[in-house]
């Protein structure tokens, strides 16, 4: 029987009631009295020297309050980067300044140069047109390998080159890896591109700031996944505002997928402008601005090799990746191709020797940062593509070669050769489940049926692993993180027993208001509707790190459990006093405290009331009230894993690929709300299938963004996608957090691209197009057709 409340129940989402009736509170829905509006003037060239800015005409236009340039931010810091990578020679990465408004040079199309603040947005836009910017255009640095050539044009004149860092992982293993290749029975080599993507949360970014002069304090409403992080980065590093004078509110946020983690220039701009002008200042991104100012994702170019013995056992792997950083270092950018990528190169397999080399490169493009999966999709794509290729070269079934190399259930905890230790997993069981879900044995019959309709059918499998529950602070500190990655929770029990939970996690579609309430309800045994979840406001929530990296339940949920357990411990003391029993004899079940072995009991609400009306209360040993705060810092990452199978039909006449079946068998550890978990996987799959078949950010050689709107950037639509089969019943609970959960937000986007590409290559191979061993994503009809006819 499915549970009807608490952990394991598919509770309907409470947040839906406001979203379905137009009563959500997104940042753009906020307006403050007397607010002014911003229009940014953004570079229309990729690289150039600013010779002059003439704002005289614009400043005289109706409604214009001020035209800002970098001179207005001379005392401000640059937008900081949150990670410091040390290269393979022990040197720190090159870290250029990222100004709020361009200083001297523009470095990508969309780089903000100046901004007009006016009474209305239309007036600001009209005036922005009248600002004359004189730019001497410079050659655009676009190709990563060319960018590293001797004498290449530099994106940042004050750096020694366009190389941000040259990272080796694990550098000490390199010689042993190279040695293993000399003894291998077979070596498979693959060159591939992980296509650049634009996250495209449906809600464009918004920032609205106001300044209170008597209190010298600020409030910033912003579309953020982590308001405390924005407060810290902007307050401490950019504008020098102490935390107690800066409140950051991230209300309902319309999707993030990583793109709303980072501190952006526009947030600092409106905050400073609100003080300068003494009025609230609001900026709402257009979608066109979003395309050229939200951090992009992926964009890796990789050459890799896999060494195998005669049985198809993996002996060693080595990779060389060029990772595009864009023009500046976004908040998490250096961590993505390194510690979120290199550490996952073992996948589900017992490959003993691995060496990963990553060269991070500056180019004249929008900064690149974490996008759903962040490094782990890049790792999984490489690994699962080269395994398929090796299997084909050696005449081994792709399912069998994976099976032979899986880490076995009795090998956990498993120390990989790329630093991380997997706590638990059962990859064989996951594979068995996905094969069963897709009736893998019936594939040939389906292929014949497709062939009868003139379609080429193929099947692709991919297994992924990811490191979620980010992250143990002491470990990431050693790896270069400049922040801790714990999470906070404050549980406030009200006098009559209802509860408000303040969480440092942030929900922008994940349904925390429902899921977190289920966790607390389950722990205490009271109805979910007695619990309210509050998030997104630094004014009422302990310092939290926010939501990304599938961390909210594993880290934020664990903090809530910890705080709830403190509440229960105290409530038991109160109950023991009233019931005149020993504290050790008090049990809490279904919201009732009982004395073990007796019929003496007290309701939850009787105890909570006693905490606030302490007439009969152990005041000599216990403070009144019932409110507890907890911070949870994980001891390891969590390691969700899964097996995905995709079936495609390729139209040989047009090259069009249709996904005709997709199944995902995931091990997320324990699941709190199966309905929500299904939905998270569906969404991830759509983004992964989108990457595989449709999406790509395209720049021309001059650095112009050719995919700057939904007319050009192929977002997956309803008729591009199938129904998916998803399953998460194969559970190996996480061993080191109190809920046994692993995280589910990114899995779909990580595991699906290689499954799709493997399926297309399989379709073409089976149809006799044996020369087609790889096609770079996205597998558009023209690329597939060209491959067939190549």
């Amino acid at each position, binding site marked *: 029987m499915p549970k009807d409340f608490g952990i394991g129940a598919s509770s309907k989402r409470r947040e839906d009631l406001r979203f379905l009736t137009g009563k959500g509170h*997104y940042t753009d829905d906020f307006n403050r009295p007397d607010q002014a509006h911003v229009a940014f003037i953004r570079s229309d060239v990729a690289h150039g020297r600013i010779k002059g800015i003439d704002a005289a005409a614009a400043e005289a236009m109706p409604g214009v309050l001020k035209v800002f340039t970098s001179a207005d931010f001379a005392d401000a810091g640059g937008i900081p980067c949150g990670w410091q990578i040390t290269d393979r020679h022990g040197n720190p990465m090159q870290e250029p300044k990222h100004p709020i408004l361009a200083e001297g040079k523009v470095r990508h199309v969309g780089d903000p140069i100046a901004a007009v603040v006016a009474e209305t947005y239309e007036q600001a836009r009209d005036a922005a047109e009248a600002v004359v910017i004189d730019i001497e255009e410079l050659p655009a640095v676009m190709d990563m390998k060319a960018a590293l050539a001797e004498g290449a044009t530099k994106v940042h004149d004050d750096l020694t080159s366009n190389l941000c860092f040259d990272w080796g992982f694990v550098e000490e293993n390199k010689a042993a890896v190279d040695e293993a290749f000399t003894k291998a029975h077979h070596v498979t080599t693959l060159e591939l591109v992980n296509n650049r993507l634009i996250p495209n949360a*449906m*809600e464009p970014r918004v920032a609205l700031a106001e300044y209170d002069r008597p209190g010298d304090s600020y409030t910033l409403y912003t579309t953020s996944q982590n308001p405390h992080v924005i407060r810290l980065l902007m307050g401490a590093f950019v504008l020098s505002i102490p935390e107690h004078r800066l409140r950051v509110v991230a209300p*309902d946020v*319309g999707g993030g997928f990583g793109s709303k983690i980072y501190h952006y220039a526009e947030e600092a701009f409106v905050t400073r402008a609100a003080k300068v002008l003494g009025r609230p200042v609001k900026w709402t991104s257009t979608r066109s601005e979003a395309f050229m100012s939200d951090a992009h994702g992926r964009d890796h170019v990789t050459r890799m090799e896999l060494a195998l013995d005669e049985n198809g056992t993996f002996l060693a792997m080595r990779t060389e990746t060029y990772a595009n950083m864009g023009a500046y270092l976004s908040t998490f950018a250096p961590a993505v191709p390194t510690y979120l990528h290199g550490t996952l190169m073992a996948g589900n397999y017992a490959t003993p020797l691995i060496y990963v080399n990553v060269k991070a490169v500056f180019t004249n493009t929008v900064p690149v940062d974490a996008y759903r999966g962040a490094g782990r999709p890049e790792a999984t794509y490489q690994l699962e593509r080269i395994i398929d290729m090796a299997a084909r070269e050696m005449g081994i079934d792709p399912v069998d070669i994976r099976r032979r190399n899986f880490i076995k259930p009795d090998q956990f905890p498993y120390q990989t050769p790329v630093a991380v230790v997997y706590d638990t997993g059962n990859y064989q069981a996951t594979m068995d489940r996905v094969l069963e879900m897709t009736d893998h044995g019936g594939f040939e019959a389906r292929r014949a049926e497709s062939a009868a309709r003139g379609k080429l059918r193929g099947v692709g499998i991919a297994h992924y692993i990811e490191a979620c529950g980010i992250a143990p602070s002491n470990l990431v500190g050693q790896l270069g993180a400049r922040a801790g990655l714990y999470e906070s929770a404050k549980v406030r029990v009200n006098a009559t027993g209802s509860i408000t939970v303040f969480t440092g996690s942030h929900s922008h579609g994940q349904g925390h208001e429902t899921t977190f309430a289920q966790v607390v309800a389950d722990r205490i045994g009271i109805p979910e509707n007695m619990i309210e979840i509050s998030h997104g406001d630094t004014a009422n929530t302990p310092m939290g790190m926010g939501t990304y990296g599938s961390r909210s339940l594993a880290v934020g949920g664990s903090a809530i459990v910890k705080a709830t357990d403190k509440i229960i411990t105290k409530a038991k003391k109160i109950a023991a006093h009233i019931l005149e029993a020993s504290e050790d004899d008090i049990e809490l079940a279904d919201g009732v405290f009982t004395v073990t072995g007796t019929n003496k009991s007290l309701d939850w609400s009787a105890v909570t009331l006693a905490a606030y009306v302490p007439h009969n209360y152990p005041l000599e040993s216990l403070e009144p009230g019932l409110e507890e705060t907890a911070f949870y810092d994980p001891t390891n990452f969590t390691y969700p894993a899964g097996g995905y199978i995709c079936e495609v039909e390729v139209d040989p006449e047009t090259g069009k690929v249709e996904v005709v079946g997709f199944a995902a068998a995931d091990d997320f550890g324990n699941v709190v709300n199966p309905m929500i978990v299904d939905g998270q996987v569906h969404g991830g799959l*759509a983004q992964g299938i989108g990457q595989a078949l449709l999406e790509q950010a395209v720049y021309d050689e001059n650095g112009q963004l050719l995919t700057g*709107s939904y007319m050009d950037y192929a977002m997956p*639509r309803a008729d591009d996608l199938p129904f998916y089969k998803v399953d998460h019943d194969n559970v190996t609970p996480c061993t080191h957090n109190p809920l046994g959960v692993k995280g589910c937000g990114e899995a779909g986007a990580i595991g699906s691209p290689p499954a799709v590409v493997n399926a297309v290559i399989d379709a073409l191979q089976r149809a006799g197009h044996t020369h087609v061993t790889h096609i770079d994503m996205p597998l558009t009809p023209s690329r597939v057709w060209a491959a067939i006819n190549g």
Partner: protein
Amino acid sequence: MTKVTLKVNGKEVSREVEGRTLLVQLLRDGLGMTGTHVGCDTSQCGACVVHVNGEAVKSCSVFAAELDGADVKTIEGMANPDGSLSVIQQAFQDHHGLQCGFCTPGMVMSAAALLKENPRPTEDEVRHYLEGNICRCTGYHNIVKAIMAASGQDVAVAAE
């Protein structure tokens, strides 16, 4: 400036609007009805879909000045008179057809228009009809399920 008088969710309203004011701006900024969202600037995403005289319309692509006398319905007017969710809204909640909620108003308004003209659409018809509504969260799976359920069809077989 032009004065327009129109009905929004059954209530008559009058406003002075500029020639360039879009219907969605009138709704959000002029009337404070922020349920209708703007997700793009090329009339592609569909977050702003409302009904004008019973037809689904992208409110970012209509000038407010053209709507004198029009009957406009928005997401704020979709619940039952007693405030409970309508059949389509309830189906979206029951089938988890929304996550961040940003595209949801447009999805619900498009779904209502679809079911009005095609009360029992096939899965393909639903997917084709939603071509002008982009969702980044759900992968559409549960949106399609919700709309088919709202049409009274058994979706468990189709989807699982």
